[in-house]
């Protein structure tokens, strides 16, 4: 049974293919279109998935879209009527989009893939999220908590998920309705802080540790009231996301918190003035989000009685909240699938059809996120030779890793391109920029000259399992989050003394545990670095420049190398260095 899942049209469209219940491939469309968080129909990602399986679209048994478009449309229409006579610009924009395109998703998919429309199915948005988390987890039964901006009408939901002798079931227990949404609240404040929505939330998380949450927490808690049972009520006088296409907060919010930050303006969280104010607001926002996650998780525990929790939806990408939940929350084990945002809906929809509707047995739990496209050593070498890029080729990974470790120890920063591309927003050693994590100056250099990011943004460490024990503080519970870099944990004293480039201002880090069984090549490289330096940790950030998606191909990786201050680039077993790198002039002949 071949089931292709698709997510599209809000942000971060993606495709995922399951064959007889096994995940063959999954990828986000942005990696092909090169448009960050591309929301258009993921044709190229879908094409990659079927090619990876050696089939064509004609061979698919089912194609499942991740949400119910007509239910979503109903919400938009009734919402427009509710806020009338306000909301004209929202109405004009959304109706134009829906009447012209999104209502006809079924026929659009059928035409684009050239398939019979009767083979197209439609899952529920939050159910797709829930399925993506549970069916990728190692649990036979679990509570599932989903939370994002909004699906059709739901903003958060609690499910009970079970796999037993009778098959798999995903039972909705309760849900929260639009417009009361932690995801939309977080996004509105992200916009207030001058960052781009659906992209800037990570920046807010990175900014928060610079601030004092107590200054603005009472004000935010008044406009985002968290009930004892984890429900949520927003004071809509402060928000306009339900009636304006681009502006998500009102002037009343600015009266409460002060003027909003102009997008793109300089931000120094330590300036003692506006920068500090924004950091304080970010801190309060983050604290409130954590409070809600804990309360909602407690409610999920209470109503399901389960010991394990799976989470999905954009809010589940809040790794600070995840870390606290995993360490001190009501559940013994917590799992989040790496593409927990809307892209994950594609995977979840396909899993829902495969395991619940069709009753196919579950696949082994997701251990690594390497589900995307790859280029073999032969393909990489051919690209380098055709483009006359001088490079060194190593006979083995071991030799390569030694050379890389040597360079890293010397203070060089390199790009690492190997294996299949990661699924989800994090780079986990397949499309990464790596560096020595030991000095804070290294972090500043990578931020300023390579990633061109705001200076307050931290970098993440990738560490071998025993080094995680040495340098970070983890709760004595099974850890399903850090292999996918989905939780922030405190750095130990030894870590603070050693890992200056990856320890954030509040002494925390979003560590990736690199298990040799799950990620052998990346683990071997870190091991080589440990042999050279005594520290089995690397600074790991994604291989992309600001505003661009993570690179997919060797050519794109080379483009990042060409346009930044990277010292070297590893493409499978080939090494290109800035000394061998030729500028193009004279080459175009």
């Amino acid at each position, binding site marked *: 049974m071949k089931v292709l899942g698709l997510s599209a049209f809000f942000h971060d469209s993606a495709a995922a293919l399951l064959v007889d219940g096994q995940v063959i491939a999954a990828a986000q469309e942005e990696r092909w279109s090169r448009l960050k968080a591309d929301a258009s129909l993921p044709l190229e990602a879908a094409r*990659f998935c079927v*090619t*990876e399986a050696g089939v064509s679209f004609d061979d698919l048994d089912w194609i499942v879209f991740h949400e119910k478009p007509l239910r979503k449309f109903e919400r938009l229409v009734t919402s427009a009527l509710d806020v009338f006579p306000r909301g004209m610009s929202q109405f004009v*924009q959304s109706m134009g989009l829906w009447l012209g395109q999104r209502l006809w998703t*079924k026929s659009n998919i059928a035409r684009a893939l050239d398939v019979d429309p009767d083979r197209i199915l439609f899952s529920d948005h939050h159910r797709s999220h829930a399925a993506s988390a549970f069916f990728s987890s190692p649990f036979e039964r679990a509570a599932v908590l989903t939370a994002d901006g909004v699906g059709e009408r739901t903003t958060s939901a609690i499910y009970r998920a079970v796999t037993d002798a009778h098959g798999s079931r995903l039972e909705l227990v309760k849900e929260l309705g639009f417009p009361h949404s932690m995801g939309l609240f977080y996004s509105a404040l992200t916009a207030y802080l001058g960052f781009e929505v659906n992209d800037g939330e990570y920046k807010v998380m990175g900014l928060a540790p610079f601030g004092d949450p107590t200054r603005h927490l009472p004000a935010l808690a008044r406009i985002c009231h968290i009930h004892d049972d984890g429900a949520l009520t927003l004071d809509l006088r402060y928000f306009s996301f339900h009636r304006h296409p681009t502006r998500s907060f009102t002037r009343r919010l600015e009266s409460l918190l002060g003027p909003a930050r102009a997008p793109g303006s300089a931000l120094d969280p330590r300036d003692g003035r506006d920068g500090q104010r924004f950091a304080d607001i970010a801190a309060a926002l983050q604290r409130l989000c954590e409070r809600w996650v804990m309360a909602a998780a407690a409610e999920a525990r209470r109503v399901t009685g389960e010991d394990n929790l799976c989470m999905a939806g954009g809010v589940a990408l809040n790794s600070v909240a995840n870390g606290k939940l995993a360490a001190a929350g009501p559940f013994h084990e917590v799992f989040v699938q790496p593409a927990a945002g809307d892209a994950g809906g594609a995977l979840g929809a396909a899993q829902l059809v495969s395991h619940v509707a069709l009753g196919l047995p579950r696949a082994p739990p997701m251990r690594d996120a390497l589900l995307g496209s790859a280029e073999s050593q032969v393909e990489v070498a051919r690209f380098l030779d055709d483009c006359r890029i001088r490079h060194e080729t190593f006979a083995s990974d071991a030799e390569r890793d030694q050379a890389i470790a040597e360079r890293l120890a010397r203070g060089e920063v390199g790009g690492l391109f190997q294996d299949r591309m990661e699924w989800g927003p994090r780079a986990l050693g397949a499309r990464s920029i790596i560096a020595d994590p030991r000095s804070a100056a290294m972090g500043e250099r990578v931020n300023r000259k390579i990633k061109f990011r705001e200076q307050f943004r931290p970098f993440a460490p990738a560490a071998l399992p025993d080094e995680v024990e040495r340098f970070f503080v983890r709760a004595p519970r099974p850890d399903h989050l850090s292999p996918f870099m989905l939780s922030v944990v405190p750095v130990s004293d030894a870590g603070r003394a050693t890992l200056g480039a990856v320890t954030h201002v509040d002494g925390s880090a979003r560590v990736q545990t690199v298990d040799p069984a799950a990620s052998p090549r990346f683990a071997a490289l870190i091991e080589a670095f440990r042999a050279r330096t005594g520290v089995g940790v690397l600074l790991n950030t994604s291989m992309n420049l600001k505003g661009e998606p993570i690179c997919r191909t060797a050519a794109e990786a080379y483009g990042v190398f060409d346009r930044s201050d990277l010292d070297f680039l590893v493409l499978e077993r080939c090494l290109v260095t800035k000394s061998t790198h030729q500028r193009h002039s004279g080459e175009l002949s």
Partner: protein
Amino acid sequence: MTLRSTPTTLAPRKPRRRLGLGARLSTLRELMRHFAGTGRWWLVPMMTIFMLSAALLVIISIVEYAAPFVYTLF
């Protein structure tokens, strides 16, 4: 697990033109049934007016050489 035996980037086959009219009509029917089913009966006449407007735009857009209209505003 990889079953791939062909290059990653496969040249797409030119699709057979499916107009998708049948799918659109069934979507329309389902939409109206859904609105009626929610008890919000007033959405049915409202959507009928909207759909007639959308149909007008579709007809104009088919005449691409005259003035290709695209529905997406942004």
